[in-house]
């Protein structure tokens, strides 16, 4: 009895410590909004040990930490797990820095990296595949397609270790990415299931797949770390969803439905300073006056706070010209007048109204320290290349690691690496240092390149390098072979002496490989076989048949069938006998010479 009282007391007192959630809304130019959902969960302290072949989990109680994830991590000896689901293109010039310094959002598609404890790399890979296969079922993503041909062991780009392994073991950082994976509601549902609120209360109740995945850019991430004090460890899981929401699009969809219709005449926004009547209209730019609420944008209101006695904070970064209607159930935490924090309490649905007189008046956007773009060069299906341009926007030099893993079917020629700075060709070794390069092995290993690059202030460095595109086997092409193959985004990690500052990714690239004709297998086998047997047959005939004149042949042909056959056999025997005789003669002389010796 005493125990239960104690436990429930512990529960209440620790609740706040074990789960946090928040939503931050930041206006961006062109009537876009950046929504940042953050959820933090911590597990109860427990002991974490290395299990060679998986084990029944010793821990059965995780409180807020998802029951499904704990055993998964323990069985695969995963000490750190990072999973990213991202779609869309982050417009760094318009939107500035990626939220959380890019440390919580991935490149296009799905990205997974983990720190796994194991005695050897082969054992680590075994754990890794166990992990990726389990996660695949868990998140309804194609993570089960992770195999040797896309798995890398990054050296420096992702390193952030907080766990100390057993003395006999080492920690392995393993990474893979699936750039062509579409992100969909089926990935969001398991994501929400991990939350203690299950997406039914608190800010997570805003997350509706239809709205989140309708955004210009969105990223879902899960980061699990093991934090230890002496022998007692606990898992810390950060889940976050970032989305850039196109507000006019949301409003239009809300009013008109999903199918776009032409704008009605009376709704046209014409430039009144110019000539305009019912026939003529010079359209104005985007509206600067907008009224909307959370429900229009996310499709639902916030269903109260996460737990009845908890507070779910919603932070809105706004400037003058933004008026926000506070409704019942909201407390304002007046820490700063520019960034009020609305605290949601109770169980009532909460909606926030935005009445904006000037949408262009937005907080200053933090510029990205580095703008990177990677594009494909070349025009043919058998050769190509990459052109990567890095622009340093800062007043001081920037140092970063460029991590790139290309699939094996791009045969990289790194000796073609050329660099230009501000349009002038330079010796690349002045700016770029090849930290690590592991060439690809066909079907077994991707190429893995890590470059350390230093760019002086306000300079643009452009790297060019070439590759050959390999032909694949007939069965290795996907059903839509001419659609192309995705190449995963490169990862750029900006750092200084004290550590990692900022992370960003290029877009993924779509390369087209040469394709065979898929209707041809039988024809090719037949035609090649024909040419080969033509050669074989004619050479065999020439080599073994006897030669006669045509007159002799006709004489033979005039005879009856039996005589013909006899003559044929006779010729054969004669030919074989002479050949054998010749060979025997030579062998004899060989033997004779041996004997004489």
């Amino acid at each position, binding site marked *: 009895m005493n125990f239960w009282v104690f436990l429930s007391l512990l529960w209440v007192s620790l609740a706040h410590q074990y789960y946090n959630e928040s939503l931050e809304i930041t206006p961006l130019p062109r009537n876009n909004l950046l929504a940042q959902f953050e959820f933090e969960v911590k597990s109860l302290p427990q002991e974490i040990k290395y299990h060679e072949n998986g084990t029944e989990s010793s821990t059965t109680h995780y409180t807020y930490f998802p029951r499904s994830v704990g055993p998964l991590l323990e069985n695969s000896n995963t000490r750190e797990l990072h999973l990213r689901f991202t779609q869309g293109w982050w417009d760094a010039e318009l939107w500035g820095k990626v939220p959380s310094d890019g440390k919580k959002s991935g490149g296009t598609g799905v990205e997974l990296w983990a720190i796994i404890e194991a005695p050897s790399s082969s054992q680590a890979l075994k754990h890794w595949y166990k992990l990726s296969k389990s996660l695949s079922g868990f998140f309804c993503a194609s993570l089960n397609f992770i195999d040797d041909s896309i798995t890398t062991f990054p050296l420096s780009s992702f390193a952030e270790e907080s766990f100390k392994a057993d003395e006999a073991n080492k920690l392995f950082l393993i990474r893979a990415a699936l750039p062509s994976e579409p992100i969909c509601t089926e990935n969001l549902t398991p994501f929400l299931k991990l939350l203690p609120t299950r997406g039914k209360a608190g800010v997570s109740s805003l997350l509706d797949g239809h709205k989140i995945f309708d955004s210009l850019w969105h990223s879902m991430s899960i980061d699990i770390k093991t934090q230890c004090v002496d022998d007692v460890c606990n898992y810390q899981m950060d889940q976050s969803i970032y989305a850039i929401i196109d507000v006019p699009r949301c409003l239009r969809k809300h009013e008109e439905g999903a199918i776009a219709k032409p704008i009605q005449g009376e709704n046209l926004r014409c430039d009144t300073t110019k000539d305009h009547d019912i026939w003529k209209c010079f359209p104005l730019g985007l509206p600067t006056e907008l009224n909307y609420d959370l429900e229009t944008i996310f499709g639902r209101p916030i269903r109260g706070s996460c737990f009845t006695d908890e507070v779910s904070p919603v932070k809105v970064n706004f400037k003058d010209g933004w008026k926000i209607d506070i409704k019942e159930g909201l407390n304002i935490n007046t820490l700063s007048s520019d960034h009020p924090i609305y605290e949601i309490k109770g169980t009532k649905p909460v909606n926030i109204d935005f009445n904006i007189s000037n949408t262009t008046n937005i907080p200053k956007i933090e510029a990205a320290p580095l703008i990177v773009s990677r594009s494909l060069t070349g025009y043919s299906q058998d050769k190509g290349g990459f052109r990567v341009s890095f622009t340093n926007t800062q007043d001081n030099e920037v140092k970063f690691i460029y991590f790139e893993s290309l699939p094996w079917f791009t045969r990289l020629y790194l000796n073609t690496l050329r660099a230009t700075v501000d349009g002038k060709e330079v010796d690349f070794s002045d700016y770029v240092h090849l930290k690590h390069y592991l*060439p690809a092995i066909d079907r*077994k290993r991707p190429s893995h390149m890590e470059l350390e690059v230093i760019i002086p202030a306000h300079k643009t460095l452009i790297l060019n390098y070439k590759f050959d595109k390999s032909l694949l086997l007939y069965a290795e092409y996907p059903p839509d072979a001419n659609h192309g193959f995705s190449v995963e985004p490169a990862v750029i990690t900006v750092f200084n002496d004290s550590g990692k500052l900022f992370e960003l990714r290029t877009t993924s690239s779509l390369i087209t490989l040469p394709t065979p004709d898929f209707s041809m297998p039988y024809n090719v086998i037949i035609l090649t076989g024909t040419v080969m047997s033509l050669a074989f047959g004619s050479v065999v005939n020439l*080599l073994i048949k006897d030669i006669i004149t045509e007159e002799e042949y006709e004489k033979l042909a005039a005879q009856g069938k039996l005589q013909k056959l006899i003559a044929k056999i006779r010729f054969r025997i004669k030919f074989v006998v002479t050949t054998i005789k010749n060979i025997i003669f030579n062998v004899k002389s060989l033997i004779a010479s041996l004997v004489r010796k």
Partner: protein
Amino acid sequence: MNKLLVFGVILRFIIPTIFPDIPDSLDSLVELSTPINSFGSLKESFFYLSNGINPYNGGINHHSPLLVSFFYNFQQLLGNNMFTIFTNFLYALVDALISLRLVKINNWYHKYNSERRGEKLYKISDDLIVSFYLFNPLMILSTLSHSTLIFSLFFTIESVYQIINGNLPRSMISLSISSYLSLTPIYLIFPILAFAHRLIKVDQLSQIYFHGSAVFITSIGLLLFFSLILTSSAEFIDQCYGTVIRFDKLQPNIGLWWYFFTEMFDFFTPFYLGVFNLFHFIFILPITIRLFEYKSHKTVGDGFLAIFLCYVWLSFTKPYPTIGDLGFSISLMPIFSGTIIPYCKLIHITGIVWLIGLLLSPILYYCWIVLGNGNANFFYSMNLLFGAVHILILIDFLWGKLVSDYCDIHKVPAKDRHTIRLTQY
């Protein structure tokens, strides 16, 4: 001849020196470069070496370690610009040496066969032999693309030349280097030993076979041993020779293998790999035995023709052929102008088929890969055509030799020799 030689060398040296982009752009043509002989991948291996990466642990280098280290050391020694000039010069030099060897072989072949037959045969002039090699557009393109095929060709032809010279060990060493560089010439050991059987005067004939193969195996062993020491791992064997045998690198070329294995169903691939590898050397021994110069008749058989036909067969069934292989057999053909060419009936057809293939194959490849208005079948049809060229050369020369042998055995008078109608039964 000297003028022609100088001109040929200058042509090969000046063009890539003045236009340094030419080797690179030619190296990107599938007709000229394959994964195993492309100069681009050799240069990539320099990059690996200078960055401390093992060039045989994956990647795109399939050149033999000694060749890589030879070029790499020169590149380190000379610097990039001088190295380009050095390679241009080296390739031109090797070509000149090949053409000189061809001249020597031609002279010997004419003398030998004239003596054998006891009549003065028609002899093609040295100038023409040199021109057929040095100004053969296929050989020029092959050299300008800096395909490493040329070294293998040089050592093959050197091996034949050393037999004529009467030096069996040197011949075997050359052949072993040639096989070490590109594997395929290893099959030529049979016709070359049979060739030596007739030409090299030794006390005991067995010496030729025993000494020959012993020297061959020893020198191959030494080469592999040095490579092993150089790379300190055996990975190069898989990368250089395994790639050839297993046909790992699917890249279009002018041979029969690539499209066949692209389209082949997975579970049949190992079987057909076996079949194709068997097919690769299936006629080496039969041709060698059939064209062996038996003592039973003075003029029957032709050891050098056997080598030539085996070479054509190997080039036909190679996993990674280039037009350099075909071009080389075409450069060898004029040597037979006194003996077999008079009996050949298909030369014109061969020439026309060959020209069509040569003209259309880059066009159709461009249609498939760049324009997208053709597909792989277009280019594949040209591969079949190249196959046909090889078959035509093979049967034409073989038949020519058989007719000539028939005429000699049956003592057909000279005036009837070209009108006699023969068939096989």
